[in-house]
């Protein structure tokens, strides 16, 4: 069975390698960018105030945690895997953060503990997949059940966070540029939250790791063709475990951001958010078979999802379920587009 897989992988690979012109390489990301602009144009022609700089910045503020999750998911999907446990691990992180803060821990150790938790989950899932050859889908599904169940063990109720450090972070606004004057004469500023900076720094680090380090090249190589990567002597086993550590840590960071954003820990936080992350990654042009894609595309994917949500909330009369239908339709368009690109390159 392994042999057939390698063969199937090899045929699609050669076809993809042929398209090395910049347009072909970045075509999928460009398509996402065009979509984002298009969605914005639709929004701005329909509603005044849609193109307000703060509306755009709010996209980043509201989706900071999703950006971080999408970055982690990109690593996993690039190797041809999938991580269904991200939403649950994120929820567990919010719970542990809240519980430890209530128990009187200082913020520093709490953050370290939560990051360690994400790490442990990642290592566990990675070893499960690598050593015991359990499919990523099932292994991360088990991790999802485990993490979600542990949330309820920590507490079935919502825990509020009153720690001064977290509260001050959640309320702090980083002023960017003046946008006008309020009625009482104060100057208004466009602002972002600290979580946006964290998210963008993580995107930058991820892009650097993927494109400038040996680990990053191995990630692409595994997704391209695992058999070849192993024959080339690349550290496939280590890298495969490490990508789940990356996604685990990203889930933990997402959880910290979400805990700061909502100032609470709740067991049902982020149910189904892993699907949003997968959608964002796919809309961002990363192939689910692995080997091709960029974190920047995932960032754009998150922004597309966020903008659609903003439009539907601006509309007011549109019911919330249209969000799901539109995102589904958008996924379809992108997947078919990717498919056509691959077919065209092959011929």
């Amino acid at each position: 069975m392994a042999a057939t897989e390698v063969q199937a992988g090899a045929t699609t690979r050669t076809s993809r390698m042929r398209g090395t012109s910049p347009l072909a390489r970045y075509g999928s990301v460009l398509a996402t960018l065009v979509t984002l602009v298009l969605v914005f144009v639709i929004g701005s022609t329909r509603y005044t105030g849609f193109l307000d700089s703060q509306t755009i910045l709010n996209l980043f503020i509201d989706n900071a945690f999703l950006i971080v999750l999408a970055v982690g998911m990109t690593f996993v999907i690039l190797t041809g895997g999938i991580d269904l446990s991200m939403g649950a691990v994120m929820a567990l992180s919010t719970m542990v953060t809240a519980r430890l803060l209530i128990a009187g821990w200082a913020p520093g150790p709490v953050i370290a503990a939560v990051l360690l938790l994400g790490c442990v989950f990642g290592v566990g899932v990675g070893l499960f997949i690598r050593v015991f050859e359990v499919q990523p889908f099932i292994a991360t599904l088990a991790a999802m059940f485990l993490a979600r169940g542990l949330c309820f063990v920590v507490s079935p109720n919502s825990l509020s966070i009153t720690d001064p450090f977290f509260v001050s972070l959640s309320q702090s606004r980083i002023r960017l540029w003046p946008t006008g004057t309020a009625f009482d004469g104060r100057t208004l500023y466009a602002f972002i939250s600290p979580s946006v900076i964290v998210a963008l720094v993580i995107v930058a680090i991820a892009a650097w790791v993927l494109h400038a380090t040996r680990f990053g090249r191995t990630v692409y190589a595994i997704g391209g063709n695992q058999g070849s990567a192993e024959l080339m002597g690349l550290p496939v086993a280590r890298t495969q475990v490490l990508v789940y550590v990356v996604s685990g840590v990203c889930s933990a960071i997402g959880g910290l951001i979400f805990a700061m954003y909502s100032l609470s820990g709740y067991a049902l936080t982020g149910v189904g958010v892993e699907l949003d992350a997968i959608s964002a990654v796919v809309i961002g042009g990363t192939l689910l078979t692995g080997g091709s894609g960029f974190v920047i595309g995932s960032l754009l994917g998150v922004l597309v999802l966020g903008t659609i949500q903003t439009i539907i909330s601006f509309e007011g009369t549109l019911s919330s379920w249209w969000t799901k239908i539109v995102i589904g339709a958008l996924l379809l368009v992108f997947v078919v587009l990717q498919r056509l690109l691959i077919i065209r390159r092959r011929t």
Partner: protein
Amino acid sequence: MRSLTRSKVFWPLVALVALLAVNVVARPGFLGVRMQDGHLYGSLIDILRNTSPILLVAIGMTLVIATRGIDLSVGALVAIAGAVACTQIAASPTPGSASTVLIAIGTALLVCLVLGAWNGFLVSVVGIQPIIATLILMTAGRGIAMLVTGGQITTVNSPLYKSIGAGFLLTLPVSAIIAGVVLAATALLTRRTALGTLVESVGINPEASRLAGVRARSIIWTVYVFSALCAAIAGILISSNVTAADANNNGLWIELDAILAVVIGGTSLMGGKFSLTGTLIGAFIIETLRITVISLGIAPEVNLVFKAVVVILVCLLQSPVVQRKFRARRRAVAQEHGEAVEVVA
């Protein structure tokens, strides 16, 4: 004995028996089944009835997975089937009449058939990976179900419709009979004809099977339609049991439970092989686990932790590494006893 322990369904069966044993210890009357109001009554009968929807979805999923596919959209299809059937019955002036119920069920099945054909089209003709092709309907499907119900929870007042999910026939739950019939029909169709082998061959290598004259495309298309049909029946059972179509919650995460049931039952996600018996046991394990956690007096939400533990254990026991260890030990023992060593494929 040795062939028994080597059987794919051995470990799942052990897990199921162990779970039942835990229940017997916790509640000595657990296995008791008695007649009440003209039908059988007891925990085992409850398990039988509550397993039916998961089992139905899992039967369809088994064939999809056998072709190396996956169908994430079944949960949404469950919601859509319930929504279509319930809105029709609720809108009808005669909700109790047989024709209304039959037409409602017919339309629900038809709608899901079309959606299944859509999934099949995306996978077999357009060539999109199954996980993402069905993710589209998984995301959009609940939105469609809400569109059908208008965002409301549509309740129906139809004794006939209720009897499908909650009624009894010949002292057995109707839903269990329906699931049993579907299972038996699927087993006959796949194991007594060449269909099962063809499905497996497509799972092993679609291109090679096509060259060998197997109509791989039609087979892949068919399994997605079949999976949608199974999900539709499950959706009718669920909405009938609660006499309501709740677009948000009917069949929520049932796709994951069904996939788990299939995998616990020994069918690999890599395709090429399937076991309907295994799926049956897997579905029972998932439902029994839920009942066990409740009967042990643990908060139902913590059920997830136990589910995770069972999945991890069963997957570990079935994993190639552990299986090799088992085999090596078995061989060593056999050699000690001076027996002929079998060649293990």
